[in-house]
C-alpha cells in the first residue's frame, strides 16, 4: 500500500514531531496530565503514521522489530531496577528515595499552589520514562504485526 507523495512527505514531516510530543508527555508526566503510557502511545502513533503511508516492507528497512523489542525489554527492566533500588537503598520496594534529596529530580517541592518544577518528584519521572519506552516498543511491535497483512500496491 503506497500512498501518494503528498501523504508520504507529510508523514515524514510529522513523524519527528509525534516522537518529540510523545517524549514531552512522558517527561512531564509528574506535572501535567499524561505520563508513561499516554506518551508512549503518542510515540507509537508516529510509527503507525509511517506504516500506513508506505508499504510494510519499506517500513521494515526503517524500523527494526528487534530494536523495538529491545526497547520494550529495556523499559521493563528500567522500571524494575528503579523499584528495586528503593528496596536496596532503604525503605521498601518502589520507595521514592530520590524525592527531595537534591540532584537528579531531587528539588524539594515548593509549598502552596505553584505551577511545579520539572526537576522534582524523584523516582516518578524515571518510572514514567521506563513505562514510556516499554509502551513505545510494545505498541509499535503490535502495530507492525497487525498491519503486516495489508495488501501491497493497491491503487
Amino acid at each position, binding site marked *: 500500500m503506497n500512498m501518494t507523495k503528498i501523504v508520504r512527505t507529510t508523514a515524514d514531516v510529522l513523524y519527528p514531531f509525534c516522537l518529540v510530543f510523545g517524549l514531552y508527555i512522558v517527561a512531564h508526566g509528574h506535572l501535567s496530565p499524561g505520563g508513561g503510557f499516554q506518551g508512549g502511545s503518542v510515540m507509537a502513533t508516529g510509527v503507525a503514521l509511517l506504516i500506513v503511508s508506505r508499504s510494510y516492507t519499506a517500513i521494515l528497512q526503517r524500523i527494526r522489530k528487534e530494536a523495538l523489542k529491545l526497547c520494550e*525489554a529495556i523499559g521493563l*527492566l528500567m522500571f*524494575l531496577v528503579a523499584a528495586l533500588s*528503593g*528496596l536496596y537503598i532503604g*525503605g*521498601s*520496594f*518502589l520507595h521514592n528515595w530520590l524525592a527531595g534529596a537534591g540532584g537528579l529530580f531531587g528539588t524539594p517541592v515548593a509549598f502552596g499552589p505553584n505551577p511545579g518544577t520539572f526537576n522534582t518528584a524523584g523516582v516518578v519521572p524515571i518510572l514514567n520514562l521506563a513505562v514510556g519506552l516499554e509502551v513505545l516498543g510494545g505498541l509499535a511491535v503490535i502495530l507492525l504485526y497487525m498491519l503486516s497483512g495489508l495488501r501491497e500496491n493497491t491503487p
Partner: protein
Amino acid sequence: MATLLQHLPALLVAVPLFAAFTLPLVGRTGAPARTAWVFLGALLTAATGLLLAWQVFAHGPLLYVFGAAAPHVPTPMDSGGIPIRIIFQIDALGALMVVIASLSSLAIILYSLASDSRHSGKDSFYSLLFLLVAGVLGMVSTGDLFNFFVFLEISSLSGAALVAYRVDKGQAVEAGLKYALLSTVGALAFLVAVGLLFAQYNALNIAVVASRLQFTPLDQIALVLLAIPLAMKCGAVPMHFWTPDAYSTAPSSITAFLVVSSQASLYGLFRILFSLYGHLLEFSWLTFGWFLIILGVLSMFIGVTMAIPQKDVKRLMAYHAVSQTGYMLLGVGVGLAVLGNAEALTAYGRTAMAGGLFHILNHAMYKGLLFLTAGAIFFRTGTRNLNKLGGLGHHMPWTMVFFMIGALAIAGIPPFNGFASKFLIYESVFRFSPFLSIIAMLVSILTLASFVKVFHAMFMGAARTEFAQVREVPIPMIAGMAILAAVVIVTGLMPRPFIDHMILPAVNALVDRADYIAAILGGH
C-alpha cells in the same frame, strides 16, 4: 539476611518479573544461557515463595507497604489512621496458596525445559510463563482490591497467550481467544464492582472497605459482580465451558499451572465472601453457603459425567478438574453456611472448610501431575486420542507410575492425598446434610471408573508396532513429575502435620475476619 527476609513479599513478585523481563535479553546469548536463566529464575521464585510461607506459618501474617519508608507500618502517622499505599497482606490462607504456586511453578518449569525444547519462540514463552506465575503470586498476596484486579489481568492475559502459543491448526488459537474474551469480560465486571465500592467508601484496601461496608443496594450489586467472574475463572459449572478448550489445547506444562491460576480465583472468591463481606451476610450466611454448595455439587456431578465419554485425554482431565473444584466449593460452602452457628462451626464447619482448602493443595499437585503425564505421552506419541493409544506401559514405565499415583489420588484412594482431603469433606458434610456427602462419594466412584478406563486405554495391552520407537521422556520431565508425585505421597501418608500447621491456620484466617481487618487498622 534480616533485611532480605523483611522484603520477601516484594521479592515474591519482583523475582518472577525480573526473570520475565530479562529473558528477551538473555535469550539473545544462546539457548544454554537461556535454559540456565529460566531454571535459576524458577528456583529463586520457588525459594522466595516457600521461605515467605514458612515465615507466615511460623510467625503470623506479614504486611508489606509498597513505596513506604517503613514497609511494616500500614497506616502512616500523618494519614489519619487509614492506609494510603498498596499493601500486600499475606495471612495463612495466602501463604497456603503461595506454597501451591511455588511448588507447582518449579515442577512445571523444570518439565517444560525438556517438553518445549523442540519448539521455537522460547524467549516469549518463558517470559509469559514467568508473568503468569507473578500474576498468580500477586493475586494471592495482595490486600488491595484494585491491585487484585491488576494481577488477575496479568495472569489472564499471559494465560490466554500461552494457551494459544502452539497454534495447532487454529484450535489452540480459538481456545486462547475464548479464554481471553471471557477473562476480560469477567475482569471488567470485577473492575465495575471495585469502582462501586471505591465510590462509596473512598478506599481500595480490602480491610478498610470491609470495615466500612454498609451493604447498601450498590454493595449487593458489587458482591454479585465480584463473585460471578471469580466463580467463572475457577471453572464452577454453569460457567465452566472455557475450561475443556483451554486446558486441552494449551501445552501441558501450562495446563498444569492454569489449574493453579484457577485456584487463585477460588482464593479470591473465598476472600471476598469471608473477609470482605463476611459479617454483612450475617442474616444470609445460609443463603450464600448454599450458593457455594450448589455451585459445588453441580460442578462435581456435571464435571464427572461430562468427563466419562471424552476421547481426548486432556479434555477428559479438564472435566475432572471442574469436578474436583466442586469439592472445594462444597467444603468451604458448608463452612460458610454454618458460620452463624458457633456450635455447628466447631462441630463440623471448620473441618469441612479444612477439607475444602486441603483439597486445593492436593488438587493442584495430583491434577498437575496428571496433566504432565498426559503431556509426556503426547510428547512421545503425538496424539491425545485414547482410541489410538495403548500398550505404553512397556515403553514409559516412569510415566505409568506417575499416572497411577495421580489417578489413585484423584479418585480418593488411600494412602494418597486425595483421600485425606475427601475424607475430611465426607465426614463433615455428612453431619450437615447426608445427601450431599453421598453425592460426593458417588462422584468419587465415577472418577475412579473414568481413570481406570483411561489407564487401561493408555498403558495396558500388548506393545503396539506404531509405538515401537517410543521411549521414556527426558530427565527434566521426569524430575518435574517426581516433585509433584513426592508431594502427593508425602501429604497422603502424613496429612496430620500439614492440616495442623497449614490448613487449620488458613481456615482460621478465613473465619476470623476481625483479625484480617485489625492487621491493617489495628485494635479489635
